[in-house]
């Protein structure tokens, strides 16, 4: 996990979001108002190079992978496997050809993990530790396991700024067989002290799972330094296509895990009443994979690498700082901002609410200004319940967002507040 500068400044960044916008065709479509897209936390936009990579693949190279012996099928397989290596190298995987498993999205990666660990590794009474700020994708699969396997769930708590409380960490992690938590909260923006928790969890022999869905799009990630055994992330939040997710795991852990879905590609041999699973990573990739999407995700990784993840992280910080300052300056006590107050402790998004304006109404009025934000529970209902709200509004950022977008947000919010006052 890289180190980031103290005081980044949007004007001193190595790239200009206004120039970046030109790479993303969605911003040049004809509209009444310019698109102010502040919902990349839900799903980012994608650059032309990603669209082209997928289009070119379908036009010139499509055939099913790992099956045909003809040249076309071989070329399709080559492109698919090249993307695997690229994505593996992007997160510092020591053995990218074996450790990168493709799924449909983070949700499927996390379900794969829970299901697989639920067949043999976890037993009734075993302890699985989560946090109270997990996305439903890293919460419901474990609740499901608890209901049919009888595992026990425990939770690392957080303070009123959404920072994990590590005081009782040893007590909580003692005896845990799995510790699964997010690297960055999709509601609070909190960057969690993941590596520190992983180290303690490992000292108790737990398997450590990281939900990197909101982290990978914004910050450099190196799985060799992270301390996780398994990591999940999703293509469509990192400038890639929908329909492709990633599971990274270290060889030891992946090898110990039984397959999740059964079918073609995941077997080495099948007899009438038994099967032998294929080698890694194919044992976890049953059926025809999302070939074009994997290739598109490879192109997204090229695009991110080209800008440099450290530069992207600097931009993330700079925009976070400016947005927090401008929102606080303009709305003071009339707005409630959730999560850490210090911009250096957060990434990607700002969730907020006004006392008298419901998030739905905020987002409706913002929409009329061309400003897209998310309103809702952000797939984190337990956290919402704890915050005492049914919903919040959330503005989330990516490399194409600049100070003008923040200004448009602030102006539109002021209008919403006026309207309902």
């Amino acid at each position, binding site marked *: 996990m890289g180190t980031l500068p103290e005081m980044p400044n949007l004007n001193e960044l190595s790239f200009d979001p206004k120039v970046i916008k030109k790479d993303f065709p969605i911003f040049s479509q004809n509209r009444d108002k310019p698109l102010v897209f502040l919902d990349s936390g839900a799903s980012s936009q994608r650059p032309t190079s990603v669209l082209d990579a997928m289009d070119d693949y379908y036009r010139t190279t499509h055939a099913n992978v790992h099956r045909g012996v003809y040249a076309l099928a071989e070329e399709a397989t080559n492109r698919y496997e090249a993307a695997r290596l690229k994505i593996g190298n992007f997160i510092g995987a020591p053995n990218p050809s074996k450790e990168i498993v493709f799924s449909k999205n983070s949700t499927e990666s996390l379900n794969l993990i829970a299901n697989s660990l639920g067949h043999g590794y976890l037993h009734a009474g075993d302890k699985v530790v989560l946090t109270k700020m997990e996305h439903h994708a890293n919460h419901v699969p474990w609740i499901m396991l608890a209901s049919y396997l009888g595992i026990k769930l425990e939770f690392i708590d957080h303070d009123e700024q959404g920072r994990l409380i590590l005081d009782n960490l040893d007590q909580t992690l003692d005896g845990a067989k799995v510790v699964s938590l997010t690297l960055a909260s999709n509601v609070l923006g909190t960057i969690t002290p993941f590596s520190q928790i992983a180290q303690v969890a490992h000292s108790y022999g737990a398997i450590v799972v990281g939900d990197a869905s909101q982290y990978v799009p914004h910050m450099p990630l190196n799985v060799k330094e992270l301390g996780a055994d398994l990591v999940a992330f999703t293509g469509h939040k990192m400038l890639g296509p929908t329909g492709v997710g990633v599971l990274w795991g270290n060889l030891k852990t992946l090898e110990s895990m039984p397959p999740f879905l059964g079918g073609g590609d995941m077997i080495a041999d099948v007899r009438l009443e038994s099967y032998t699973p294929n080698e890694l990573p194919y044992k976890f990739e049953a059926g025809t994979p999302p070939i074009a999407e994997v290739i598109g995700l490879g192109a997204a990784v090229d695009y991110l690498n080209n800008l440099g993840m450290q530069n992207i992280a600097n931009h993330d910080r700079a925009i976070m700082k400016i947005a927090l300052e401008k929102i606080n300056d303009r709305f003071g006590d009339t707005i409630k901002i959730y999560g850490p107050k210090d911009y250096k402790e957060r990434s990607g998004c700002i969730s907020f609410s006004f006392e008298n304006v419901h998030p739905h109404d905020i987002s409706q*009025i913002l929409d009329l200004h061309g400003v897209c934000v998310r309103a*809702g529970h952000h797939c984190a209902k337990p956290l919402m319940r704890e915050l005492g709200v049914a919903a919040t509004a959330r503005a989330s950022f990516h490399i194409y967002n600049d100070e003008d977008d923040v200004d448009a947000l602030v102006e539109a919010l002021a209008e919403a507040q006026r309207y309902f006052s």
Partner: protein
Amino acid sequence: MQGLEDLYREIILDHYKNPRNSGTLESPPALKNEGYNPLCGDEVTIYVNWDGDKIADIKMAGQGCSISRSSASLMTISVKGKSLEEARGVIKTFKSLLSLADDHETVEIQTNEDLRALGELAALQGVVKFPVRIKCATLAWNTFSQILDEIDATI
């Protein structure tokens, strides 16, 4: 701002800021049903005191946006004191207003007179132009409708 007035009529804002029949009824004896909008987390609880012939009292509680709260508030006013049959009629009219009724159930709302007869409920018509908000407007009504089914099953 263009478009906004269609959705946020004054009546809607008034019912949002000062919801009528807000609160709870002791249950039992009151019938009670909870509704959720899984998309956005909005929640509503409807309480009905049924005296054997009509809705003697109705209350609504929960959290929601201006559309869902005002729609619930308007609903309570328009069904309070109504018989089962009449309350079902109000629901049909409401659904017709939002173009949600099945063909055979659609109540014609054509003339201004028809609209006037709807009273304040007509303020919700603007929601039609904002399809994502229709779920907000219907939450309380669907929740209430299930209570009517429950009443129906007992008589």
